[in-house]
Each structure stands twice: as structure tokens, then as C-alpha cells.
């Protein structure tokens, strides 16, 4: 017991804050109100956690005095306010009585203690507390805290809390002042505060000022919200784009319905997971850069699997799209079960590298870095692929074989090999999509299933045999989905988009950007 006390004192001494002493506690608890308040302010000036606990007990009416000593009594158990040690409560212990003046001082002191706490979370909580019940008495305290605050987020909330106090003030000038101050704030909380006050305000001048401020705040918020919806739409669109780019090659150019495309993405995501594990074990210092190594690994793993599938199954089914669909569905079932057997049926954890966590803050918008990186990545992959198709020899062969297989073969192109390369390329891009998805979502055996219907919708909507169509369709669907989500919820948005696509396909079965031709079947 003694040892523990010594340790405690040593800790308190080491922490540097002035510890509550028995004399101080007594001075705050008993005596004339003026003296008590003076003692209280002295204690608050350099307080520690124990002071805060004591003041809290005092305001909860849980403090008693007995024989010149101060005790905290909670749930029938007594404790010493200075040391925290348990003590027996004497039978003649008297309650400490706080009058209203004392209570007010105690509350302010408590809030002030929290406002100046070292812990940013406590400060934020204190601001939230003060914001809930705007009280003019706390204005000086808020002003002081506002001046001292260094954290920009809390400073902003403090400013808002101060304005909330001012706006409820009985002084008209102060209210007008607050309306002007709030115009700078661009947060949804300001909007709700203003909406509240507009209803209660009686003075026409202030009312007009409040209305003007409210309009300004709402205007800027609307743009922020729209920008947020556009951003999340582009983000979803970029993911759809990555997923659909691989399909644009295998389905769009080669005409192969690959229902295992989602599972090739899953392989890419699991390849990322494996690379992450290897870095964690062998190169913990370079862990932040595992993603750079994971990108080519994911591409190669999926491309290899794609080449095996093409050589093993799909090449026997060219020209029989319905059979291809069934066979690749079978492949997808086997791949899913394979991953379940190897990695388990549970989702595995893939961490963002530290440089991808957090986000870019613009006004009231927060754009997560991982989403921004994926948008950039999707367009980089798109650029690389269009270069590959348009400028390289392999791209030329792929175009030649898809346009006219017999003539390409006559020109000496090894069409079977081109098929394999093209399919492996499409599969590799699926692997890249999986690598990207591992940074924003769960990695599990069902990862591919969630995207496969969407991806086919993108390709079908964009028009077969077109890269540009795929891009527009992916981004368009992403943004449309997010906007409908805004007013109808996620599930209804998805249904609405699917129904819209089905209706659209009725009107334009060849997709948005069809290759023009004279085929009777088109």
C-alpha cells in the first residue's frame, strides 16, 4: 500500500502539473463563498486530473467534510480527494452545500478545465458540450480558449460555439455581429444553427442578416455536397472503369464472355494480400511501398491465370458464346472455392500504406487519398492500354485478328497466340482492378461477384468493341449511381440504374458507341 502511494506521488511529481493538496481541497469545499471561489480559481489555473475529478464530485454533491478533512463519497464508499485512496466515511460527516453562485462557478471551471485539456478529444467534447447550451456567461472563457486553440478543427468549432452564444445574446449588436461572423463558416452545423435561430428571431434587422447568412452558407454547402457526390461518383466510376477495361478487351474485342473476370480480380486482390504479408515479414522498413511491388505481381498473377484458362478451356469454345459463359462460370466457382481452401472463407485484411490514409480537405469536402490514388491509377491504366492497343505491334495484331481473323492469319499472324496474349492482357488488367479494390474494400472470396454484373453493364452500355464507350459508360454509371443514391438510398439507386440500363438497351441494343456496320444481325 505504502509503495503504491509513493509511486503515485512520484508519478504526480513527475507529470509537472500542480497536484491538488489537502489544503486546497478544504479551501474549495468549506468557508465563505468568496474565499471558496478564489481558491477554486487558483486551483483551476494550474490543475491536474485529480482537481477535475474533485470539482466534478463537488458539482455532483458527492463531497462531505468530517473533522476538518474533505472526503469524496461515491456509491457509499469514501475516498480521499488528494490521493484517491479509500477511506471509511465517519458517521458525523457533513454534506458540502453549494449555493447557486458556487454551482455556476464550478460548472464554468469544469468546462474550462476540459477546454484547456491537453487531450484534443476532450477539448472537442467540451466544445460540443458548450455548443449544446449556449450561455452568455461562458463567453469570456470561449474567447480565451479560441485565442489559445491550435488545432484548426477545434478552433473552428470553438468559433462556432462562440457565435452560437453571441447569436442568442440579448444585445442586438452582438446578434448582428454573430450573423456576420457565421457567414465565414461553411459547415452543416452552422446551417442547422442558423435555421434554428431564424425561427426564433424577432428583430427584423437581425432576421434579415440571419437570412442572408443562411442563404450564403446554404449556397456554399450545396456546391460542396454536389462536389462530394461528383467525387464519389468519379471514384465509383474509376473502379468500374478498371473492372470494365479488362472486360472491354476480353468481351469487347475478343467476344469472349468471361464470367470468371470477377475471380481474376479476386486473384489480383489476394496477390496484393500476399505481397503485403511478405513485406511485413521480410521488409518491414519498406512496408509503405509494398503496393508498388503488388501492382506488377497482381497483374502477372491474374495474367498467368488468364493465359492458363485461355489455353485450357476458352480456346475450344470460340464462336460459342453461350457455352463460354457457362464454362467460365464453372471456372469462377472453382477459383472461389480454391481461394476458400487456401486462404479461408473469411475476409483477409489489406492495409492502406500510411501515405494513402487520410485525405485532402477542401472546404467542407474531404477527399480520401486512397480514392484519389485509385482515380489516378485507373486513368493511368486506361492510357497505357490505349497506347498498347493503338501503337504497339501486339495491339495491331489484336485489332487485326478481331477485325478479320482469316485475313490476319493469311498475313502470317499467329492468331492463336494473339488470342492468348490478348486474353492474358485483359485478365492482367482485372488483376490490377483487384489490387486497387483491395485498398478500398474487403478482400474475400466473393469480391469478384459483387462487381461482375456492374462490369458487364458498363461494357454492354458502352458498346462492344470500343474503349471510349467503356470509359464514358463507367464514369457515367458511377456518377448517376451516386446522384440517385443521394435521394433514394443505395439499394434503390442500384435497382434504378439496372432498370435504366435494361430500358436503354431496348432503345439502343448496340450500346452508346456502336461500331457501324451492315450486319443483318446488328
Amino acid at each position, binding site marked *: 500500500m505504502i509503495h503504491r502511494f509513493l509511486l503515485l506521488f512520484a508519478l504526480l511529481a513527475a507529470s509537472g502539473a500542480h497536484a491538488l493538496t489537502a489544503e486546497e481541497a478544504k479551501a474549495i469545499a468549506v468557508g465563505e463563498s468568496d474565499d471558496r471561489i478564489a481558491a477554486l480559481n487558483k486551483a483551476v489555473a494550474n490543475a491536474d486530473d485529480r482537481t477535475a475529478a474533485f470539482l466534478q464530485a463537488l458539482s455532483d454533491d458527492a463531497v462531505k467534510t468530517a473533522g476538518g478533512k474533505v472526503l469524496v463519497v461515491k456509491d457509499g464508499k469514501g475516498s480521499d480527494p488528494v490521493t484517491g485512496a479509500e477511506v471509511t466515511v465517519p458517521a458525523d460527516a457533513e454534506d458540502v452545500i453549494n449555493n447557486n453562485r458556487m454551482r455556476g462557478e464550478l460548472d464554468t471551471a469544469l468546462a474550462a478545465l476540459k477546454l484547456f485539456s491537453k487531450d484534443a478529444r476532450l477539448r472537442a467534447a467540451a466544445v460540443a458540450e458548450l455548443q449544446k447550451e449556449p450561455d452568455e456567461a461562458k463567453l469570456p472563457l470561449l474567447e480565451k480558449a479560441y485565442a489559445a486553440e491550435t488545432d484548426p478543427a477545434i478552433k473552428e468549432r470553438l468559433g462556432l460555439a462562440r457565435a452560437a452564444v453571441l447569436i442568442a445574446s440579448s444585445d442586438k449588436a452582438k446578434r448582428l455581429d454573430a450573423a456576420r461572423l457565421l457567414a465565414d463558416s461553411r459547415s452543416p452545423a452552422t446551417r442547422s444553427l442558423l435555421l434554428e435561430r431564424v425561427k426564433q428571431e424577432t428583430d427584423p434587422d437581425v432576421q434579415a442578416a440571419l437570412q442572408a447568412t443562411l442563404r450564403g452558407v446554404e449556397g456554399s454547402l450545396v456546391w460542396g455536397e454536389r462536389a462530394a457526390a461528383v467525387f464519389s461518383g468519379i471514384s465509383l466510376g474509376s473502379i468500374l472503369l478498371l473492372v470494365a477495361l479488362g472486360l472491354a478487351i476480353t468481351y469487347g474485342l475478343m467476344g469472349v464472355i468471361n464470367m470468371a473476370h470477377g475471380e481474376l480480380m479476386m486473384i489480383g486482390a489476394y496477390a496484393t494480400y500476399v505481397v503485403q504479408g511478405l513485406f511485413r515479414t521480410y521488409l518491414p522498413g519498406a512496408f509503405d511501398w509494398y503496393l508498388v511491388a503488388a501492382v506488377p505481381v497482381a497483374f502477372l498473377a491474374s495474367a498467368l491465370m488468364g493465359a492458363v484458362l485461355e489455353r485450357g478451356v476458352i480456346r475450344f469454345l470460340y464462336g460459342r458464346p453461350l457455352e463460354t459463359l457457362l464454362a467460365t462460370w464453372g471456372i469462377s466457382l472453382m477459383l472461389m472455392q480454391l481461394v476458400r481452401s487456401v486462404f479461408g472463407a473469411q475476409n483477409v485484411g489489406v492495409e492502406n500504406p500510411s501515405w494513402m490514409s487520410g485525405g485532402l480537405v477542401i472546404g467542407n469536402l474531404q477527399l480520401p487519398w486512397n480514392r484519389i490514388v485509385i482515380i489516378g491509377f485507373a486513368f493511368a491504366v486506361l492510357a497505357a492500354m490505349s497506347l498498347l492497343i493503338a501503337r504497339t505491334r501486339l495491339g495491331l495484331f489484336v485489332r487485326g485478328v478481331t477485325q478479320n481473323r482469316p485475313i490476319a492469319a493469311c498475313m502470317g499472324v499467329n492468331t492463336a497466340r494473339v488470342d492468348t496474349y490478348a486474353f492474358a492482357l485483359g485478365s492482367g488488367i482485372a488483376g490490377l482492378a483487384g489490387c486497387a479494390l483491395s485498398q478500398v474494400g474487403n478482400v474475400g472470396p466473393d469480391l469478384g461477384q459483387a462487381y461482375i454484373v456492374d462490369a458487364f453493364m458498363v461494357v454492354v452500355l458502352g458498346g462492344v468493341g470500343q474503349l471510349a464507350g467503356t470509359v464514358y459508360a463507367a464514369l457515367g454509371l458511377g456518377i448517376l449511381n451516386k446522384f440517385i443514391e443521394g435521394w433514394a438510398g443505395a439499394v434503390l439507386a442500384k435497382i434504378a440504374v439496372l432498370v435504366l440500363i435494361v430500358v436503354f438497351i431496348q432503345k439502343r441494343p448496340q450500346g452508346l458507341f456502336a461500331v457501324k456496320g451492315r*450486319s443483318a444481325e446488328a
Partner: protein
Amino acid sequence: MSAVLPPDGVDESSFSRLREKAGDEGRPGSHPHPSPLPPAGEGVELPQRAPLLTKTGWTAFIVAVIAVCALAPALNLLVPAASPFHMSDYAVALVGKIMCYAICALAMDLIWGYTGILSLGHGLFFALGGYAMGMYLMRQIGRDGNYHADLPDFMVFLDWKALPWHWALSDSFLATCILIVAVPGVVAFVFGYFAFRSRIKGVYFSIITQALTFAAMLLFFRNETGFGGNNGFTDFKRIVGIAIATPQMRMVLFVLTGVTLLAFFLFARFLVASKFGRVLQAIRDAESRVMFCGYNPVGYKLAIWTISAIMCGVAGALYVPQVGIINPGEMSPANSIEIAVWAAVGGRATLVGPIVGAFLVNGAKSWLTVTAPEFWLYFLGALFIAVTLFLPDGIVGLAKKWRKRA
């Protein structure tokens, strides 16, 4: 369909074998190739209508009827449990369930095997029929649910005060029977009308039907849709006022399912042997040629598509009281695609094939998911690949080939 594939090339190559087979399926007169121009002065000789079933066919059919209507009930209800000839309740439930699946496979065969349209959305029609029946069964629970309320339990749980409008007909058995046919029929008709009119076909059609059932699944998962959300309907107590969980009731449902399956088989046989059926097969083999001959394929496709959907709906309605649960999982794209594999395993463009396929695949499923659950998906996946690569005519086609060789 796309610039990549030559027009018609797909259909011709994939179904040329099937076409030959269709000829030797007991219909000597129906020459599948377009007839050469008749010599001047002679009338065009129309092929004779083939008999509904051959003599062996009728024998086998009557044996099947006896097995379903007399043998199975006797073995289950009359033979004591200790006897080796006793048919266990488990077997009754299993075979009853598989017979429902067989109806789906038969419906899939009509649209895929005979018309060349692969639907990946037949699970939707199955589930719609099942939900129509499920609503009735939920109402039949009456006040015996957990909350002892007039409304079904899940509505009490969601704090709803009255039945939503789409439950209005759910307390009448007759209206339910009409809904079981009408709801999948109308959905299929409307969807098919727009799809076929815009000449959507091949893989496009397959993918869109998959999107359709996927969207419906998402819709039914919502609680607000009024179909019990995630959990769907379960805990049924009685049907037309009779307790549902007794062996006798189970046997009645079993016999009803078997008779329905056999009746649908005869009906399908009648359809494919008729002129209507021959036009369907012509559409499958060369749609452009059919159009140039002066036929409008839309009506034919739409009719068989709607018939197929209704068959699936009836199968779903028979399935729900036997299995005791219906939830949106039945609409998942995976379920619909499985129907296609039953038909493919048994043999497309034969009518016995899908039934055989449904029994084989589902028998293997119920055996494997118990003995080696981790191998079931490997098996199913391998089945998809093997059937498409090595068995384009399915098991029935293989058996026919062997018989011919012997």
C-alpha cells in the same frame, strides 16, 4: 450482335449437331433443313405430325405415373419404417424438391434447347411463383405466429398496421393459384415483349436477364418491399386449412409435383412436335432465314418465353410448401445459371434430358454437400466446364450415341 462474330455463325455451329439429333428423335417426317423448291405443279408436302410419344415412350410414361402416384405413397406411408423398401421422409422431401427443379430445367430446355435463347433469369420466375404461394401460406398461419397477430410476424416486427396493397389477394387460395401463373407470366411477357421487339438476342439477352434477376433480388432484400426482406417467408403452418407438416400432406404435395412434372413433360412434347415447335427450332438454327421466309419471330419467342416463365413459377409455388422457406436468395444469379447447367448436363433439345440432368446434379449436390462440402463447388465448376467441352449433347445425347454404336 457484334462486329467480331460473323452473323449466324454462332448459332449454326453450336446447334448443327442438335439439329441432326432433333431429326432422329422419333419424328421421321420433320426434315430440319429448308426443303428444296418443290417441282412445278406439285403441292408442298408438309411433314406428318409425329405421335406425341412412341409406344415405349407411353409405357415409360405410364410407369412413371404409377411410380409417382401409387408406388411412392405406398412405400412411404404403408410400408413400415423398418422395412428395406420403406421410402424415408427425407427421400420424399428430396425427390419432391428435385422434381420442382426438374420442371425448371424443362422450362429452361424449351427456351434454351429448342429456341436458342439462354435465360439467366429463370430463378426470378421461380421465386415469383414461390413468393405468391408464400404470401398465401403466411396468411394461413393466422394468429398462430409468435406475436399472435392477424398480420404476418415480420409485419408486426416492422410495426406495420395494415397489409400492403399487394397482399390484398393473399387470403384466397384460388386467387393465389391465379397469381402463381399470372405474375411470372406478366413479368416475362412485358420484359420479353420489349427485349424481343428490339431484337436483343444471344449473350446480350442472357446478361440482361441476369441483371433483371439481380435487380429483383436487391429489391426483395429490402424490408420496405413488403416480402419479409432478408428472411423471406418461413414457419408455415397449414395449407387450405390443413396442417402442412404431416407425412400425408407432404405426400400429397409430392404427388402433385410429380403429376405436374409429367403433365408439363407431355405439354412440352406436344409443343415441340407441333408446327409452333418446329418454327422455334428454325429460329434457333437460323433466325434470319426464318425472317426471310416471312415469319415474324417475335410472337413465337414471346410465347415460348412466357410459357417457360409460367412453368418456372408453378415449380416455385410447388417448391415453397415442400421446403418451407422462400427468401430472396432464390433470385441470385447463381441459382438461375444452375438451372441452365441442369439442362445442359442432361442434354439440350431433348425433353428427357433436363429431367435426368436435374436429378443427377441435385442428387450429387445433396450427397456431396453432406459428405464433402468443400468439394461441391469444385464438382459443380468442373461439371460446367466438362459439359460444355466434352458433352455438348449432355448425358442423354451420349447414351443415344452409344446405343446407336451398339
